[in-house]
């Protein structure tokens, strides 16, 4: 096996183990709640699963960013792995599992809310984009934690999130200025909006991965 193959094997194993337990727990809790609810089991189950899976996946992405880069990544390097191979495999495994969980949650949402079925085509790129945006945020957490330590890294991350939020508010204000033709055009053309979100998300995700790679390339690994 090449170095990248070994890393893919290990990171898929590790993330499957950590996320798998979380997802099994969520599915178990949702199944129990649906059974207790007494209504249409599949409908209630699907509604609960959508909410909890999305929450769990979103939180996992941020948590991964924090723990994987500070804990598991140094272990892989200490076992004679190339840093780039480990980072690539880490990101591939994280993306695959999170996209699968979002896909499952989306499938449940389509089952529960039939009125969104006409918009499935537009939603898929938007979901991919939103997932990639979350990963970008996760990689920023990872980069800041790795660079500045956990406490200062978290503080800087909160500052970053606030700055991004202010920027988004400002951006929306600009878009809706005057007659807001651009904003109206985007909102009415869901497909175009989905593609834009997807493209922006992928670009930012790639930027986050690059930032993380650049930050860890020549950093001393300590135990």
């Amino acid at each position, binding site marked *: *096996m*090449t*170095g990248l193959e*070994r890393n893919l*094997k*290990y990171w898929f*194993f*590790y993330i499957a183990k950590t996320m798998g337990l979380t997802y099994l727990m969520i599915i178990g809790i949702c199944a129990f709640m649906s059974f207790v609810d007494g209504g249409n089991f599949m409908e209630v189950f699907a509604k609960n699963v959508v909410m909890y899976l999305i929450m769990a996946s979103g939180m996992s992405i941020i948590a991964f960013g924090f*723990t994987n880069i*500070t*804990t598991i990544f*140094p*272990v*892989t*390097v*200490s*076992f*004679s*792995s*190339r*840093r*780039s*191979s480990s980072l690539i495999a880490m990101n591939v495994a994280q993306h695959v599992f999170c996209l699968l969980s979002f896909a499952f949650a989306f499938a449940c949402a389509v089952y529960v809310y039939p009125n969104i079925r006409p918009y499935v085509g537009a939603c898929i790129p938007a979901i991919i984009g939103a997932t990639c945006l979350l990963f970008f945020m996760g990689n920023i957490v990872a980069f800041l934690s790795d660079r500045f330590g956990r406490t200062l890294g978290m503080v800087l991350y909160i500052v970053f999130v606030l700055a991004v939020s202010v920027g988004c508010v400002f951006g929306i204000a600009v878009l809706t200025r005057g007659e807001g033709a651009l904003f109206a055009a985007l909102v009415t053309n869901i497909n175009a909006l989905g593609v834009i979100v997807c493209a922006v998300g992928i670009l930012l995700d790639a930027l986050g991965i690059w930032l993380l790679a650049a930050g860890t390339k*020549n950093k*001393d*690994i300590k*135990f």
Partner: protein
Amino acid sequence: MSTLECKGIVKKFGSNEVLHGIDLTLEQGKIYGLIGRNGAGKTTLLSIASGQNPATKGEITVDNLKVWDNQDALDKICFSRELNITAGNQGVGGLKVKDYLKAAQTYFPNYDKALEARLIKEFELDVKKRLSKLSKGMLSMVTIIVALASRAPYTFFDEPVAGLDVVARETFYKIALEEFAESGRTFVISTHIIEEAADIFEEVLFLDTGQIILKENTQELVERVVHVSGKEEDVDAICEGRKVYHVEKIGRSKAATVMLEPGEELKNTPDVTVQPMNLQQIFVAMCGKEA
């Protein structure tokens, strides 16, 4: 012959230079003892030689392959670090022993699971425990298991016997020698428990304040370095033209650690006493610098 070469290795942390232009060649099929005081740079040197951390300047090659960021070269090296599980790095401590070993199994291409199982049994290690729940000695056992089972041609041990009881230390030396005899791997063992480990070192490397001050065959070194004591003028006469370390004066008497030429012998006289020194005594004397 396979070699691992360090050329002009410099390492700086900020403005603090901790390794000063180290040149070192490690040959295949030898056991090296890396001896140095706390903060001398042993772990830093091993982490750079194994390609885990970058050097500020210089290059490491193994069989003429650059080590840094080169998987083909990295596959030939294992550096099993001393695990320091503290409040600051609880993350690693959260892993179970079996998970840590599973990672090692995945990454080292020649990993020997049968040897791992044997070592777990010999050390009576509970693999279901988290690393944070292990004692210092048990953490040392984990690093020893990874290093030996990796079957990497160049294997570095960073303080492998730290915290081990005497029985476990003897087990380690016995198994290390068996493994060495069977595989002909190169071991580099850094340790503070010098005398115990001296018997298994074919060559010793003394590292002091970021420089290799000595690299020599252990047996030859022990034969060449002697403790000379007697009247000051007689000891001075012996010291003339020779490397002298750690001089002590008491009244008109003087004692010194002297390095003889290869093959040279110095005998006791009525005025001068010549005594052999063990490796630990030699190291302590040399850390006092050449007089």
